[in-house]
């Protein structure tokens, strides 16, 4: 059997979180009624002219600095000409030969724990198009130009990835970088990040790249992973059956998990790029770039290292928590309040994350705040409640029943730590289970330790789970051992 190698390159469209559009003063907010956020410039009314949004440049420079790239000190906007109803001017204003961000690199972590550097070819600023809506118009199409003119950076990688896992790791890392920088809201479901994947295969050990296809507009990590796997399989099958891969643009349908050809190379547009005469080359000086460099927020890699160093977390845990700026912030706030980074890490990665995933929520929308979580952890630490009860309290907090203390109080969940009372219950359980006691006494030392756990069930049942497990253990152990 032939062994194949997959070669993947990504083009990533990142919507910048500016308040207004890249060349007009219209709002970029998501979700408004169609065409209510499109001004005369966005509609390409005759005689209107573009004025660049400084914030978009600042954000693009921040990204460039974050990936250690050279910043284009003289970047030029070009017109990319093609006709489509959601492209009002009949050209997209973008950058070609002189982009704002030059070559750079992004480090990703592989499954085996090693790191790999993915080279970035360049990243350029451009305007987004509107949306064509093909449903509900009885054979016609509706056009919503709210998105037209939203600033994007298009990040173009080199073909450095060798598997869908690497591609996803790279995409996640970019997501982590742009959200940490605060230049993108990272809301994939709203199209804030969209991926075009270039995929080709070649025999392992060969140098020459195979013919590639481009699958466009994937807006989730999952879709991207599935689309790559599907395409790799298709290409290998095709070649092994004696066929040839044709250079083409493909569309992936996440619902049906199928892809189809959109257009071949022959049908590709001649975009007739030329420098936009309505916009002068944008010159950035060193002072401007340095000032942005000074103000760069902490990046995910640095944050991960700091979490290991400062909070004693494992590399893996630190990486998980550091990837997303909001999650990192949540973790740090909780840690600061409760004073226990490890417990905070476990809770954020455990219950909080599971609940959020379940409800498809971002951490910013978490019903349990970092401070509330810290309050809960504090009660675990001072033995007011056990870990098990804590989960019950968390559930109540999630459902909006108040802070940990109030819930513990209201539900009477306080851990039983009264020695006298616990001794009484242990005595009762020992008295009520003679067979278990016999069995325990008859066991060897090794087995006794294990079998002691058998008494915990009835004890917890008797205390409605509120017995302090450590204390119960101590008392039970003493009493049983005394019987030997």
């Amino acid at each position, binding site marked *: 059997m032939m062994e194949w190698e997959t070669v993947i390159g990504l083009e990533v469209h990142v919507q910048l979180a500016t308040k207004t559009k890249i060349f007009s003063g219209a709002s970029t907010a998501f979700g408004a009624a169609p065409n209510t956020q499109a001004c*005369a410039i966005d*509609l390409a*009314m005759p*005689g209107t002219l573009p*004025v*660049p949004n400084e914030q978009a440049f600042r954000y693009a420079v921040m990204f460039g600095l974050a990936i250690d790239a050279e910043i284009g000190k003289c970047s030029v906007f070009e017109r990319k000409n093609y*006709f489509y*109803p959601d492209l009002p001017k*009949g050209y997209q204003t973008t950058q070609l030969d002189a982009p704002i961000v030059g070559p750079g690199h992004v480090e990703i972590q592989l499954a085996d724990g090693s790191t790999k550097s993915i080279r970035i070819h360049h990243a350029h600023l451009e305007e987004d198009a509107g949306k064509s809506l093909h449903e509900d118009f009885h054979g016609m199409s509706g056009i919503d130009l709210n998105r037209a003119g939203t600033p994007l950076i298009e990040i173009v990688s080199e073909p450095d990835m060798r598997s869908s896992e690497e591609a996803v790791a790279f995409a996640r890392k970019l997501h982590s970088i742009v959200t940490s920088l605060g230049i993108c809201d990272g809301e994939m479901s709203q199209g804030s990040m969209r991926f075009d994947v270039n995929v080709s295969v070649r025999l392992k050990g060969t140098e020459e790249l195979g013919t590639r296809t481009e699958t466009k507009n994937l807006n989730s990590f999952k879709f991207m992973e599935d689309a790559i796997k599907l395409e790799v399989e298709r290409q290998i099958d095709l070649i092994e059956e004696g066929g040839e891969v044709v250079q083409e643009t493909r569309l992936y349908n996440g619902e049906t998990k199928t892809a189809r050809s959109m257009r071949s190379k022959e049908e590709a547009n001649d975009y007739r790029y030329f420098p936009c005469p309505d916009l002068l080359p944008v010159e950035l000086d060193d002072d401007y770039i340095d000032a942005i460099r000074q103000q760069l927020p902490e990046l995910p890699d640095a944050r991960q290292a700091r979490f290991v160093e400062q909070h004693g977390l494992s590399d893996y845990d630190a990486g998980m928590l550091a990837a997303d700026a909001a999650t990192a912030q949540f973790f740090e706030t909780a840690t600061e309040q409760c004073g226990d980074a490890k417990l905070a890490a476990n809770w954020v990665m455990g219950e909080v994350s599971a609940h959020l995933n379940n409800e498809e929520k971002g951490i910013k929308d978490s019903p349990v705040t970092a401070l509330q979580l810290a309050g809960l952890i504090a009660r675990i630490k001072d033995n007011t409640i056990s870990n098990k009860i804590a989960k019950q309290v968390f559930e109540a907090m999630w459902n909006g029943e108040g802070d940990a203390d109030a819930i513990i109080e209201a539900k009477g969940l306080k851990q039983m730590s009264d020695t006298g009372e616990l001794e009484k219950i242990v005595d009762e359980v020992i008295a009520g289970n003679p067979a278990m006691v016999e069995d325990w006494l008859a066991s060897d030392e090794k087995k006794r330790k294990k079998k002691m756990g058998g008494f915990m069930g009835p004890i917890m049942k008797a205390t409605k789970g509120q017995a302090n497990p450590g204390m119960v253990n101590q008392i039970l152990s003493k009493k049983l051992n005394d019987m030997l």
Partner: protein
Amino acid sequence: MHNLTIAELIKGLGNKDFSSEELTRHYLNRIQRLDGNYNSYISVTEDIALEQAQAADKRLAAGEAPALCGVPIAHKDIFCTNGVRTSCGSKMLDNFVPPYDATVVENFRNDGAVMLGKVNMDEFAMGSSNETSFYGAVKNPWDTNCVPGGSSGGSAAAVAARLAPAATATDTGGSIRQPASLCGLTGLKPTYGRVSRWGMIAFASSLDQGGPMTRTAEDAAIMLNSMASFDAKDSTCVDHELSDYTASLNDSIAGLKIGVPKEYFSEGLNPQTAERIQAAIAEYEKLGAQVQEISLPHTHLAVPAYYVIAPAECSANLSRFDGVRYGYRCEDPKDLADLYKRSRGEGFGEEVKRRIMVGAYALSAGYYDAYYRKAQQVRRLIKQDFVDAFQDVDVIMGPTATAPAFEFGAKSNDPVAMYLEDIYTIATNLAGLPGLSIPCGLVDNKPVGLQLIGNFFAEAKLLNAAHQFQLATDFHTLTAPGIE
């Protein structure tokens, strides 16, 4: 009243010799009676004019009149006017009513000017004879068998026929100066970036510039005072100090260094026109100027370079006219391609389509380097010619057009002959320099113009030189035959 210049009208209105309403009614009446002979107006905005005139009279009475208070003018139909159809001389925009004013229109309104209407032009400013207008050809008041020049033919004919005291105009390759020359007027194309292009429908963005069409240099200075502004809505507008262009009109021009490019007197120039130009330059010598021959060695490349760059830009600028959001849309489109093809095919005239095709070709893959890039290189050489020349001289002088006005149809089937009409004016657009045409006599009873080219932002110097000439001569006072 209609023989008074703007300067005289301002005085007359100030002295209450007549009211703005009287003046405006007088012009509206003339337009109604006489414009059938010339076809210089596309739209007459009588109601707006009278309303503005009455408001101006109140301000005049209250003694708070701004510079042009109550002075009627006409706007080339390329300038967007809020609530008033702006056609750009095209069927494509026959139904287009902009919801905004061009900055030029706003400037004049702020200065109290009264809008008489919108004047005719070559379709999308593409033409040198005003024969390409959807609204029919404009006739030259000096000889109604002849063209008025173009593309600002309506502006020129209206002023020459005394149907407006002055008009706005635009110049991409000579569209102010050539019709000024052919109609015996003073026409100024300012430095690129001096007048805002916001709301001025783009033909070739890097070349288009608005300017005044007037009877005298003094009027041009008054008009430019209103027209010129720095406008943040136009990224190519230059934040250059604004001066009162009337302030230096009366400065002596003794010692003024005039350069006469030998290339401007080559074989294509009508010999009688050449005589008038030489005589005008001799007049300047009498006024104390020093004349020297200079060379602009790349002059012969200006027309070819222009006819790559301008069509290339226009091919993209006119893509927005697609029948989707505004303007002409074909009946019952079968599908999207049909909508585009027929809306554009039916909405644009022949010359516009020719230039879009030439431009798209020049930008297409495989031809870009040979045409567009080469033309941009030539453009830099042409600009350098002027930069070098202005090391030695203050003003460059030569003919505006090769000959006086030609008859209808003489060149309309020969695009190259038509393109050569602008052989002396195009280079200044490529270089971005200011150029001015003033009447300097008649050939075959039709006017010919002397062109003055200045250094960047040297409009005041050009106007000063022109005014001094007009103080010493009376060519600018000659009126077309048959004008009441």
